[in-house]
């Protein structure tokens, strides 16, 4: 069964008339990695926010079906409990909430929503320590408030750590490469690759081809002016790197 089925999606900002997503169609199956590439303003981040349920957007047409259910009907926390995870382009800093506490409440809220038993503190600690070590996330970072005082690279690693702990079915990575130097990019990409599995799908949103050298996609889609104008395999990303987006944005116009 298709994991995510986006059909002729149209989205506008609630308080503006201009459409940002204009008839986007995309099907994602378990195990697949889809890269969505596009220039600034093509609707990449809007797509990630609409999928995760952020307020302020209005779907005017089309549908999003996730695991056979209408995703757009669900509040963000229900989407999360059912396995949708957005790694934010700009992870939010939350003063006063320790990262460990946040992770535990998040994981146990999801487990509770799914009718699973909550994880005990020792079991939870073991899980986080194991995942954190693989991503080079220090104990000190875990004790600090969520993302507060983290460097750009630390924030992105912390997002991937959350993903590794919450084990979602659909990971949406919004410009995960932005603000990362090459070493940080490698660590993050390794973390993401470790989570690739036959039951899990990923949508990797990026402006640059660079990230896709490390997270190799099964499909590449070019997003322009709110719709997918070309799809192909990983070689399309290389073509884009060479020629730029101009050709595609013209086609779409």
């Amino acid at each position, binding site marked *: 069964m298709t994991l995510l089925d986006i059909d002729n999606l149209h989205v506008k900002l609630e308080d503006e008339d201009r459409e940002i997503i204009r008839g986007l169609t995309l099907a994602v199956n378990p195990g697949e990695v889809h890269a969505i590439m596009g220039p600034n303003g093509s609707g990449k981040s809007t797509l990630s926010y609409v999928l*995760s*349920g*952020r*307020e302020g957007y209005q779907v005017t047409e089309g549908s999003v079906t996730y695991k056979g259910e209408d995703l757009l009907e669900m*509040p*963000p*926390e229900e*989407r*999360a*409990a059912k396995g949708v*995870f*957005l790694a*934010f382009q700009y*992870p*939010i800093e*939350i*003063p*006063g*909430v320790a990262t460990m506490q*946040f992770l535990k*409440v*998040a*994981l146990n*809220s*999801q487990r509770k*929503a799914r009718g699973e038993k909550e994880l005990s503190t020792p079991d939870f600690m073991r899980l986080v320590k194991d995942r954190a070590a693989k991503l080079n996330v220090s104990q000190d970072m875990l004790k600090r*408030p*969520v993302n507060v005082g983290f460097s750009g690279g630390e924030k992105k690693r912390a997002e991937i750590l*959350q993903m590794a702990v*919450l084990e979602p079915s659909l990971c949406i990575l919004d410009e995960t490469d932005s603000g990362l130097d090459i070493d940080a990019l490698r660590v993050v990409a390794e973390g993401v690759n470790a989570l690739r599995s036959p039951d899990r799908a990923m949508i990797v949103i990026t402006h640059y081809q660079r990230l896709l050298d490390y997270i190799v996609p099964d499909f590449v889609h070019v997003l322009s002016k709110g719709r997918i104008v070309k799809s192909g395999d990983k070689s399309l990303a290389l073509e884009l790197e060479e020629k730029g987006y101009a050709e595609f944005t013209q086609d779409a116009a």
Partner: protein
Amino acid sequence: MNAAIARTAAEEALGFHLPNRRMEEWRWTDLRQLIDKPYPPRQKVEAKGGDVERLLASSPFAGVAATRMVFVNGEYDAKHSKQSNAFVESTAALDDPVNLMNVAFATDGARLRIEGNVDTPIEFVFISTDASPRTVATRNVIEIADDASATIIETHLGEGSYLANSVTEIRIGHNARLDRVKVELESHDAVHLAHAHVIVDRNAAFRDFTLTAGAKLNRQNGTFRFIGEFADAKVSGAYLLAGKQHADTRLVVGHEVANCASRELFKCVMDGHARGIFQGKVIVRPGAQKTDGKQSSHALLLSETAEFDAKPELEIYADDVACGHGATSGDLNHDHVFYLKSRGIPEAEAKALLIAAFVGEAFDTVHHDGIRAALEDFAARWLTERRRKG
């Protein structure tokens, strides 16, 4: 005060004119208008059987190991106390109306002189039991000897309708340290008027935290004076207010000598029609160079009808100082709420987590782990209660 103005029934019972909005310090808390019934002073009230035990058990610090001094309806209760009073003289002369009433009506209070390092916290518990409306006034005098250190908790609990007037005088000696934690959990039908007057001497460290969650009407004054150099004072507080509660804190920090540091941090959570006020004044006297004085107040308004007023003031008569103030007030940050929800945390729980984090910053100034944990538990219970009421 104008003698031509007829006394209200409340003023008649007290024999005092109450402060009103035409007095700048009282502009947001017009006691003349807000105290709408008589609370006669010097009423002897016996507690009914079980009342004291029940109220003691309701204290957030019931589980914290402490040396207790219990005052019931304004009188020392030897049966429930472990520590008895010492002879320490009151020296503060304050002309503020709360203090004048206290001088006239105080029946008892804790008197302590601390020598050496006292590790176990000392808790003063003030209990007012349910009886006819009256004024209950207590006065505490605490002296921390040179080089001594202690942690003192002041817990105010009660049931029924009364006016609690509580004044605490503190003198902190050279190289001494005092951690003071006050929690105001008076009955929802009570009025709480207080003044803390603290004198901080050379090299001393003073940390003060006040939680305001009880009473329908609360006014707490604080006067802090630095009289010796290189001393440090951190004064913080949290409000957890709902319904029609009204709380007003007015602090005056006086830097009278050079090289002292003061920090004020208030985190105020207000729901329903609650009204919170924070007035903080820092005075730097001539010659008090290298003063480092900062104050901030932050309010979180959980409803459209809650209100917060802040009035920071700086009065500086020295030229080499670092002083500042900041005040914010607003709703929960929507991006924060969304981020938590996007990780699977339900909205109500996400908000509770953020509110707890907001007030928690003020709890961080409490160094004693057991006391801080008790405060965090109290805040968590308050939030659950608030959610339950919808």
